[in-house]
């Protein structure tokens, strides 16, 4: 498959087995999808292409760009924590967005989406960034203490 001379015979057979099983399972899925009258084909294709292209050409480049711009002017030591917090915020947003938009609410069913999701999202994001700020403050204090001791030793 990948043509690396170093792979052993058992690995090669395992690879063939995995690929063959995969072709069968994926083929079963495609055949089921195509023949199932309850799946409207055109909307299905439209939706799938939209999420694929939307992710690959819009969401991912945008996330990378925002991450770049947001951490560009940060001091070196603060970058990892902020990058991590951005990642947590971004993926939480993907889960929270449909709830925050709230199109799933039902006038006759108050138990469907019963919470205030704007508030919930703000609380979660605040928790993420408060934790990050605390980590950064601890780190800054520690490095100041270290450099202070070094300074004392030097004098």
């Amino acid at each position, binding site marked *: 498959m990948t043509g690396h001379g170093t792979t052993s015979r058992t690995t090669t057979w395992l690879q063939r087995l995995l690929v063959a099983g995969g072709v069968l399972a994926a083929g079963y899925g495609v055949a089921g999808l195509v023949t199932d009258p309850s799946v409207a084909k055109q909307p299905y294709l439209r939706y799938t292409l939209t999420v694929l292209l939307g992710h690959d050409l819009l969401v991912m480049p945008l996330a990378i760009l925002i991450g770049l711009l947001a951490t560009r002017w940060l001091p070196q030591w603060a970058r990892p924590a902020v990058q991590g917090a951005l990642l947590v915020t971004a993926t939480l947003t993907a889960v929270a967005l449909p709830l925050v938009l709230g199109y799933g609410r*039902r006038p006759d069913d108050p138990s469907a989406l019963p919470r205030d999701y704007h508030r919930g999202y703000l609380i979660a994001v605040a928790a993420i960034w408060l934790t990050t700020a605390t980590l950064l403050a601890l780190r800054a204090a520690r490095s100041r203490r270290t450099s202070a001791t070094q300074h004392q030793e030097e004098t």
Partner: protein
Amino acid sequence: MVRLPEPLTRLHPTRLSRLFTSRLRSPQLTSRLGMLLGAAVAVCFATGYLSHAIQHPPAWFYWPSRPVNLYRITQGLHVATGLAIVPLLAVKLWSVYPKLFRWPPFRDAAHAVERLSLFLLVAAALFQVTTGILNIALWYSPMSFFFTTAHYWTAWILAGALLIHIGVKLPVVRRALAAPSRRPTEAAGLSRRGLLTAVASAIGVITVATVGQTLRPLAGISVLGPRDPRVGPQGLPVNKTAAGAGVTTAAAGPGYRLEVVGPSGILRLSLGDLAALPQHTAQLPITCVEGWSATATWTGVRIRDLAAAVGGQPGASVRVESLERGSPYSTSTLPPPHADDPLTLLALTVNGEPLDLDHGHPCRLIAPNRPGVLQTKWVSRVQVLT
């Protein structure tokens, strides 16, 4: 991370993938993320297939009525793991994103086929995760196809494309995981361990923010739970209201009769007749396929007593029909383990009060270890199948 393009000539296709300069991307990172992602997809596939098989049992399939909370655990796991896939998938795809722009796009015919299978893999993964999120948020309109069957068939496509992917990348994974973990040269930003910690934190935050929809003790801090197991009529969530099912008058009317059909004849019982039969109480959860669940105390008549009253033998299946019409969930069949289980009730009350109309008044089915869509409400007919 990317370096911003200085002259626009950098955007020439042969150079595009070199725009991405993060030193964090490596086969080691991708392999480690891949293993976690593979495990998560396997959990989702197994629990999802189980839920499908309970609702559409193949001939070989057997599902017991105990433990009472088993389905609650498997389906809660399905939704929680699906949400945990969001950060895993995001970072996995980030780690291989430059490869999307490799130039030339493929080396030979085999490579072209492999890349096509990757499109199938990524598309299926994004489809499953996004439709799952839309579904638990009850936001169906962006999916102008039937969610349940589309999600089911796409699960097979995802599983198959993933097996192909693992088959192709196996040597890369082996080599990457065997290689001594070299300290990446101190780069500006996250280390590999830092990135994996961030992924774990994201999974933690997402889980805590939502899992209270099925873990009642966490309901107070799950600020983004699509359901709250404490909220609803009689302190219990509702998936389909009586108004939504169009049964309001039929269910509330005094003319209501339950038809019980079996080998020895037909009974027609009013609500008063039902209340005069021996009553039993059971603590059972409503477990929605959407991942929420809530336990309640139900009181009513045992299904097996009703079946016996019309000549049903132990070991028979029992079909339960609703006043609701024209929904795929308006009838359900209790397989023998559930039909015989003493906890399986035609409930008349919940938590000590007569059922709210939205909980299925005059009576509803409640059985252990089953999805909520099979716990038929507004029951009009019980038939012993022979």
